[in-house]
């Protein structure tokens, strides 16, 4: 069984702080990580490999430094790593990104494609389903549990008000939730292999079949017209008083706002 896991290297946004004066993000020194939903997808793929045997390929589109995320995936146990990188890919929205990744996947054998539900820096949750559409595959998103059943998968697909248990025949694409599992750590041998034995293949525009007009910023239907920092509202009053007084202040405020009678 061949599994392709699509991952993205993202800044660890839980480490990002705001500059209190300018209201902008302080990005310096913020570490990069494998996007959490993607990491759960990788773990799910490796668990299938442990149980049933599988060849796991990790694929990312990004700048050359995304190599680090792929090395981490190799050290966790992935068999093959591909970095899709080219200036022509830069500035892509989700439509153009999925176009590029789908084109790369057409060059690979697969039974199952896994993508994280959404990336913590963009939060769109769009690239997974869009890859599935471009490859004409069934998709199941928001997957919280997965079991293999012959050439099908039994999946738990989460909704706001419950879940569906779904059977889908491979080949298919699923998107995974970070709460699905706890990813394994890299092993010492794994780290050694990731840097000494295994290699990260670099694929550029020359390695995939796609029209150049569909790539990057030029191929993107959507554009950023402008970006801005949110206006910061004036903070309210702050009190550092004893608990009894604090409770009284809260009560008075709630009455003033007609929240309580």
């Amino acid at each position, binding site marked *: 069984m061949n599994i392709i896991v699509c991952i993205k290297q993202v800044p660890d946004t839980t480490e*990002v702080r705001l500059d*209190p004066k300018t209201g902008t993000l302080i990005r310096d020194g913020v570490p990069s990580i494998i996007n959490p939903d993607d990491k759960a997808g990788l773990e799910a793929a490796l668990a299938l490999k442990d149980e049933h045997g599988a060849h796991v390929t990790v694929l990312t589109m990004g700048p050359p430094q995304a190599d680090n995320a792929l090395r981490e995936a190799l050290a966790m146990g992935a068999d093959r790593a591909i970095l899709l990188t080219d200036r022509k890919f830069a500035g892509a929205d989700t439509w153009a990104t999925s176009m590029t990744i789908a084109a790369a996947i057409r060059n690979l054998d697969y039974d199952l494609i896994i993508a994280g539900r959404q990336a913590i820096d963009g939060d769109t949750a769009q690239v997974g389903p869009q890859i599935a559409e471009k490859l004409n595959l069934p998709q199941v998103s928001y997957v919280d549990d997965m079991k293999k059943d012959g050439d099908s998968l039994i999946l738990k697909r989460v909704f706001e*008000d419950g879940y569906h248990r779904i059977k889908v025949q491979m080949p298919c694409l699923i998107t995974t939730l970070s709460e699905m599992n706890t990813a394994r750590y890299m092993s010492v041998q794994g780290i050694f292999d990731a840097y000494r034995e295994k290699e990260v293949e670099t694929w550029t525009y020359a390695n995939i079949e796609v029209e150049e007009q569909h790539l990057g910023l030029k191929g993107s239907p*959507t554009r950023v017209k402008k970006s801005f920092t949110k206006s910061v509202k004036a903070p309210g009053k702050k009190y550092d008083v004893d608990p009894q007084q604090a409770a009284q202040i809260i009560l008075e*405020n709630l009455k003033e706002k007609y929240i309580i009678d």
Partner: protein
Amino acid sequence: MKHTDYKDVMVFCEQREGRIEKVSKELVSKGRELADNLECCVRALVLGHDMKDDLNELIHLGADEVILVDEKELAVFMTEPYTKAMVQVVLDRKPDVILVGASTIGRDLAPRVSARINTGLTADCTSLEVDEETKNMLMTRPAFGGNIMATIICPEHRPQMSTVRPGVMTLAEPNTDRIGVISKVPVKFETTDMNIEILEVVKETKQKANIEDANVLVSGGRGVGNPDKMKSLESLALRLGGNVSASRAVVDAGWIDRNNQVGQTGKTVRPDLYIACGISGAIQHLAGMEESEFIVAINKDETAPIFDAADLSIVGDVHKIIPELMKILPIHENEQ
């Protein structure tokens, strides 16, 4: 592609068990506003089977036409039949704008549809406006954890698609005098369209009222200390006639169900009152609650960023202040 071939605002109206989701009603309300500006119609698209809600309600909220595709294959959400039905209607009606609720259904369906009809899709918009000069949509969304806002346009492709989270747009007052039409559109499905098999549909009834619908939320963060101490937040919420919600840290620690998570990866809420207890106020959390009408923050750390978002800031220990509050707050009718 000629832009003039495309007009009107289409709203995908999501149903579950025959009832229209609140977010869809919010989007019909917003769609009316946009359509008035663009001088066009609002078409509400309902995909389902044996609808229980009266679809005239969508007309009262601003739709000129309700397009109903009533097929048994659409009773429960499945990506492919929903995509097929929606694409058929979209190609036929050629809307200029499509709005979809950013639910776990909308965020599965909308990207699939946008990829099939090759147009742009902007996720989780918090503001939708019309550019007065070009008549293009200006779709503003939070980026990078919610602090930076980006305004996105889709200048060359039609329709212009966006998803919007529940609670972001305001529900209009229904006008029962409004008139419109309900059109039934048939869609034929092949067996190959049913490319997944739903083995089981499970409703999670343990969940109390949805935090997105609550007027009052008492929300706990890591600073609450331990799961047992969440109980005092529950009693405060009960007294105020509200619900308990939480930050991601508390959900990840397993102190409360994920359905109660507020923030970028959780839900966007805007209750009348939001009491943040022991929540430091990471930007991801603020993105989910800063539109609340009145925010009270209680935290021991006087430098906690939550205080910058609060209307009333109390530096102190939640577990000392809540008991004092309970002594003086009037008993709520739900408490008996």
